[in-house]
């Protein structure tokens, strides 16, 4: 069975180099290429490659953010490529993940590929490579808030940027991400998504809603102690806690 491989790098010559070195290897099929992080996220979930060559340093989303976005869908066995032994390298070593320092010699490339084959020969959990999953989980705290959510919409995947979210609605085991372009359903608890969103830009209004502070148009009293937050889109949401904090946060927004 051929090894389905995805190449991600924002530089075409760098992608071509991986492609050329792979061409000399038997049993490797290049499933696709991606030139930026967003394209990489879509390609990973749509193509489900077994092996991923991933450039760490890309304009947002970078390599680690790509893996974070696809964490719950599919994590291929990953060989990281980077031009500089930056701090991420320590995390790769910790999780026994392979990385190539550009420009790498062909022998080094082949050795990494051989190790990847050995890794892939072992049975893997349903979500993909467990080492990559541990890397993502370990670097989650250091990586800051999530900027992109991967949402499955019927047969396709949509990348929803946190910046585009107006508010998040809780619905049983799901949350609904409300954006100007439409709504997206994500299987996650409101508390879980609250932890992922940037606390400086989002505010929990009560038990069932989180609003983007930038989307708030007004806060009004409807009855003694009852407040309603109106968003730019016109959505009206009850505010059941933290009126004073909300006021302070809105005032501190520029």
């Amino acid at each position: 069975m051929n090894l389905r491989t995805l190449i991600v790098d924002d530089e075409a010559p760098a992608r071509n180099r991986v492609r050329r070195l792979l061409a000399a290897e038997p049993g490797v099929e290049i499933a696709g290429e991606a030139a930026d992080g967003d394209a990489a996220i879509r390609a990973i979930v749509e193509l489900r490659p077994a092996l991923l060559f991933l450039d760490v340093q890309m304009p947002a989303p970078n390599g680690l953010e790509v893996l974070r976005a696809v964490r719950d869908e599919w994590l291929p066995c990953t060989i990281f490529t980077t031009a500089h032994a930056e701090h991420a390298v320590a995390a790769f070593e910790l999780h026994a993940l392979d990385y190539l320092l550009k420009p790498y010699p062909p022998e080094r490339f082949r050795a990494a590929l051989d190790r990847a084959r050995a890794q892939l020969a072992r049975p893997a959990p349903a979500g993909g490579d467990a080492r990559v999953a541990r890397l993502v989980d370990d670097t989650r705290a250091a990586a800051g808030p999530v900027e992109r959510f991967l949402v499955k919409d019927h047969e396709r995947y949509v990348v929803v940027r946190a910046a585009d979210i107006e508010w998040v609605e809780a619905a049983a085991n799901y949350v609904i991400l409300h954006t100007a372009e439409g709504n997206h359903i994500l299987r996650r608890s409101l508390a879980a998504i609250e932890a992922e969103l940037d606390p400086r830009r989002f505010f929990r209004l009560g038990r069932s809603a989180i609003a983007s502070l930038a989307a708030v148009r007004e806060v009004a009293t409807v009855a003694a102690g009852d407040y309603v937050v109106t968003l730019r889109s016109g959505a009206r949401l009850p505010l059941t806690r933290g009126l004073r904090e909300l006021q302070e946060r809105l005032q501190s927004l520029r």
Partner: protein
Amino acid sequence: MPDVLQSSSEPVPAAGGFGRFSPVMKFAVLTGCWLAVAAAFAAQLYALGLMPWSSAAALALLDWAPWIVVTPAVLWLARRLPIAPRTWMRSVPIHLLGSLLAVVAIEAGTRALVPHRELLFPAPRHQPPPPPRALPPPEGPFDSAWARLLERARIYVPVYWMLVAGAHAVAHQRRSLERERRALLAEAHLAEARLAALQAQLNPHFLFNTLNTIAQLVYDNPAAAEATITSLSELLRTALDAQRHREVPLEQELRFVERYAAIQKVRFSDRIDLCLAVAPEARRAAVPTLLLQPLVENAILHGLSPGRTPGLVFLRAAVIGDRLRLEIADTGAGRDRDATPAGGALAFREGVGLSNTRARLAALYGDRQSLTLTRAAEGGVAVRIELPWHLPA
């Protein structure tokens, strides 16, 4: 570093005492000093056998303790009216007046407190009391007052001037320490800025990614590989030479940036292009070495187009009056877009590159330079730098 520059522009007190201590501490030290002086005088009077120790102490205290109150006023006046080449015409007469005032004030004050100072002098023990007829003729109140004032002035005026001199010495010492500190800071700052510029130039990501690009071009396009190697060599050479010159003609910076952009163009497969618009009279102007490259690097990364039409980076230079204006703008490619209109000020966190550039410009040109960020008419970010127009040394 900007805060350092700001603090260095604060006026340094012209003269002054021990600035590090609290007022209470200062007063305590002052009191201690004058009590020590009084004790020394008392000991002398006592040792000469002129009087018992209690009288000696009382007399010395009466003569010197008033200075505890007067000294802060003298130091304050010395600080306000330093005797310097430009100010002595005004300050010396005032200090003369001040010294006389101190004499009169102390005399009047002690006189009010202890009307009969003479009573403190007891009759010498080993001498018989002088016969009544030997008493000096009674002095007129006018005579004795003048005599006492003169006697005091003989001692107190020099003391006053010693205090003024002391205040000047301390102030001078502090000023020269401050000057030394500032000079060291400025030097360290410049070295740091140079190092930062060099590191920005030899950004390892840029260097190794370019080498990786060449490793592929060798197979795909040998001519392009050759061109990239020569461009990279030229960049490295200039960057290593940059240590030697603080400023270079803009012309030279432009050549450097063009080579840099050529490499980036190869790396990013023509998704970016650099457009120069430089007025002829601007080409000769002096600019800090490696000023433009970090800014162009930023603009390229922000201006990279995800699509087929290349993103553009504009570099404009013009001479306006006696100032050189440089502007680097990008088309933005949709990143960092917000509602700021063209020309509007941008408020986002500045990266290390930009703050290094700011620090360097400030170190070189003080407040005769400016760096502003606005929303470019082209959609991305525009960095505008203004410098005094001058030719390189």
